């Protein structure tokens, strides 16, 4: 299973951040591992560039297996 973003919190340092994250975000057995990272260490893509950044993938359907029309009798592919 991969780590997924669940939220943010305040803490004095990294160790307290893990402790606080355990207290706030795992009360109902939501996970078995926590990664905490200072928000200033995160580099994020820019929302205003969203279209330019992600749209090019939209019309490249040949990257998907379903694009290829192959005989039904073909097995194991």
């Amino acid at each position: 299973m991969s780590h997924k973003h669940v939220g943010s919190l305040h803490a004095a340092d990294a160790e307290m951040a893990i402790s606080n994250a355990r207290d706030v975000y795992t009360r109902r057995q939501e996970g078995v591992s926590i990664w905490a990272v200072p928000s200033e260490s995160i580099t994020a893509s820019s929302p205003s560039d969203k279209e330019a950044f992600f749209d090019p993938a939209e019309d490249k359907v040949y990257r998907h297996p379903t694009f290829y029309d192959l005989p039904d009798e073909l097995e194991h592919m």
Partner: protein
Amino acid sequence: MEEASLIERFDNYVAANKKIEPKDWMPESYRKTLVRQISQHAHSEIVGMLPEGNWITRAPSLKRKAILLAKVQDEAGHGLYLYSACETLGVKRDDLINDLHNGKAKYSSIFNYPTLTWADMGAIGWLVDGAAIMNQVPLCKCSYGPYARAMVRVCKEESFHQRQGFEIMMTLANGTDAQKKLAQDALNRWWWPSLMMFGPSDKDSTHSEQSMKWRIKLFSNDELRQRFVDMTVPQAEMIGLTVPDKDLKMDVETGKYQFGDIQWEEFFNVIKGNGPCNKERVATRKKAYDDGKWVRDAAAAHAKKKQARKKAKAA
């Protein structure tokens, strides 16, 4: 890009049901109204720990004590999610908390009422959390991403709150005569304040129209209030309790309940600061914050020392 076209782009985005995220452009008034709403929601969760926190040491059994403790802890967590969501709008948590303490920021009017008996725990879980759920489920789909996502998490946790409350009321209502009286008395005191939680009547609600246009508010106050009444009256009947409203009547044509007039004077008076517990609630929060300063200072000092030790070791 020109302001007018930015606004148009924003309006279209919101109308298309898309989420606004922290780094997206947004009108200053949208940001301001969200800061107000989300911070007051956060304050409500934290202040909301107090009426129920009052009964933790006096819960009638160990099981009920553990359950109430868990509920109150959940409310702390909810406050934390919401402060975090609010901070994405460029505000500092300390400033939000200062505004709560100096009376500039409000919190839900319901928490200005006292919890007089154990049965109040039942009434609060059933009615107050019930009303909160009614308000919060639509917010899961609101236009501001961090707020909507915080609400999804909150709603998942809130349903245990309501169930434990109703279970308390049900147990009391099926108990001795004294216990049944206790439950009925709690219902009598919490019913109308719970209806007031949905805010003023639509015609008197100042922020509603703009909030609905921006998809921050999806249903009107009166609509949600009506839904709450229709949902809750049968629940009361199921456990043999009477809703304290002599004008309550099922309208056979619409299938909805007609209910009596709300004492709006009381609502506005409590909002203004004259409810039974307003001063006590804010004073308690301020004291907790002030008395806790040494913990924050110690944590920061400890972190600093650890960091210095690490650096020295590496050198």
